[in-house]
């Protein structure tokens, strides 16, 4: 593997020190060990583990996934082993020297806060990412990240529950992403990750039914990348806390685009399924790109987009 030795790739993502800006997105990277045959995890800045709830959860009935143009829909429903099994069994299996960010999900604010408390003080957990893109049961199933007041309560409660760096992963299913970003910043979030999957529907005309058993699903993959770039850029205009850009990254060039739009780091998501070594290739590729372009420090690229004056 060719290494670009002259380039400083380190970034600080809201208090989480990363050796390079490439993470993998929650839900697309299991608990890390699944990728051992394909990728040395130490090549990455780190990874975000599958979202954790207080108790183990089983997922939705099949079909859970469907293909879409340059993308896929999923409705897994956050199947996971639960926070205790993660701490007791999954974390110890992750090689030393790998930065682990735990993703947190629950169906009410108190549940989120409790999962955050359990993960706080656990060695190896470098930070938390709050998955705010899930239906809030007590608010009638609306996503936490879709209502500024609900989002504010969630960020406040989780911020109080942990001393760890706290990222909030925002839903793209909103009109004003900048407003949601400001809510997170105002409530003390260390940073924000965006975007989560775009709410979507695929239909089988023969059966006149949705393809997914759940009906609706989340669209991910290269199809959503321009939407993600737009939202990262808008959020970066609105807040000064660091942003982790997510959405359809397939290459180092894609990751650079997110940095230019204002992301301090990025997460590779759906591409991990198709090409399980991709995140390492993106991490190496960013450094090579920077070297070729005479960029000494990766962090100098953050927000360097030359947007036409309006």
């Amino acid at each position, binding site marked *: 593997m060719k290494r670009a030795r002259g380039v400083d790739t380190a970034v600080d993502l809201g208090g989480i020190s990363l050796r390079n800006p490439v993470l993998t997105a929650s839900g*697309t*990277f*299991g608990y890390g060990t*699944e*990728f051992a*045959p*394909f990728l040395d995890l130490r090549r990455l800045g780190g990874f975000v583990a599958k979202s954790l709830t207080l108790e183990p959860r*089983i*997922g*939705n*009935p*099949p*079909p*859970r*996934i*469907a*293909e*879409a*143009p*340059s*993308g*896929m829909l*999923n409705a*897994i429903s956050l*199947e996971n082993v639960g926070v205790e099994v993660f701490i007791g069994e999954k974390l110890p299996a992750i090689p030393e020297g790998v930065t682990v960010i735990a993703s947190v999900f629950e169906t009410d604010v108190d549940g989120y806060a409790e999962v955050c408390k359990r993960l706080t003080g656990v060695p190896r957990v470098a930070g938390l990412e709050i998955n705010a893109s899930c239906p809030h049961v007590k608010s009638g199933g609306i996503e936490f990240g879709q209502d500024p007041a609900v989002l504010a309560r969630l960020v406040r409660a989780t911020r109080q529950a942990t001393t760890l760096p706290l990222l909030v992963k925002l839903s793209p299913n909103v009109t004003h992403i900048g407003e949601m970003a400001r809510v997170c910043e105002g409530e003390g979030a260390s940073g924000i990750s965006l975007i989560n999957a775009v709410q979507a529907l695929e239909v089988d005309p023969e059966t006149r039914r949705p393809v997914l*058993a759940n009906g609706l699903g989340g669209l991910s*993959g*290269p*199809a959503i990348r321009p939407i993600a770039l737009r939202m990262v850029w808008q959020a970066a205009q609105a807040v000064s806390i660091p942003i982790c850009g997510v959405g359809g990254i*397939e290459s180092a060039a894609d990751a650079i685009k997110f940095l230019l739009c204002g992301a301090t780091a990025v997460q590779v998501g*759906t591409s*991990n*399924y*198709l*090409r*399980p*070594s991709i995140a390492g290739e993106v991490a190496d590729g960013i450094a090579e790109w920077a070297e070729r372009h005479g960029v000494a420090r990766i962090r100098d690229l953050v927000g360097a987009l030359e947007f036409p004056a309006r």
Partner: protein
Amino acid sequence: MAEAVWEVGGERVAPIRAEAEIVRNAGEGASNWRLVLRVPGWPGFAPGQFAMLAAGSVSAARRSDPLLPRPMAVYRAQAGRGWSDVEILYKRVGRGTALLAEALPGQRVAIVGPLGRAFPRPRAGERVTVVAGGTGIASVRELAARLAGSHPVELLFGARTAGELMAVEDFEALGIPLRIATEDGSAGERGVVTDLLESALDADAPAPGRRVYVCGPTAMMRRCAEIAAERGAPCVAALETTMACGFGVCLGCAAPLRRGGYALVCRDGPAFDAAVIDWERLP
């Protein structure tokens, strides 16, 4: 349930990801195709394991549509020096397989494999009935081939028409007794392959001492599971479903279990004890 793991490509070989070169890719009648890939570093495989083939990777320019790789049973593999020729039988059914069918020798396809849990071995002395429907035949050749020397093996093979049958000559070459059923009677017996299983088990009662392996359409596997269960014969089914990754992270390939919850076809299967699957809830 298993007597032992397979000697070659045991219970879990670490999978690889490789850019494989297409050696051969040709139609074999109807929409059946046979693909031979030269895969560097192929570690071997056990019967029932599969690989993910990225149909969208077959061209100089990388493309993202279709996005998902296709899970395909490994039909056979022949080892060379540092590589193996891995053979895949597939049916041209959708956009992914249509693209794959257009791929030419010399072009490259990304492959991840071998993946999944293999068929369990039969116990010593057990007689083996292998039941295949359509492209399900691709999942069972290696099983039949490796058992042929140690167990009495018979193959029951069903398709809609004679033209849709594939790889019959490969099984004849293995010397395995073969019974064919086609729905239109154009080859073998007129009818469906589940009728053959019923008569095979009934002609040779009691069924205990016999093990059934099946791969094919869900409805056919479900019926085989019922027929075997009614006669007390253990039945192993190799499930087929859409997958995004093939190695246990997308969680897209859930198969409902009778005890509740789900197994992943890619990680916990594709070969399952048919009695644990909740066939009612399997799409």
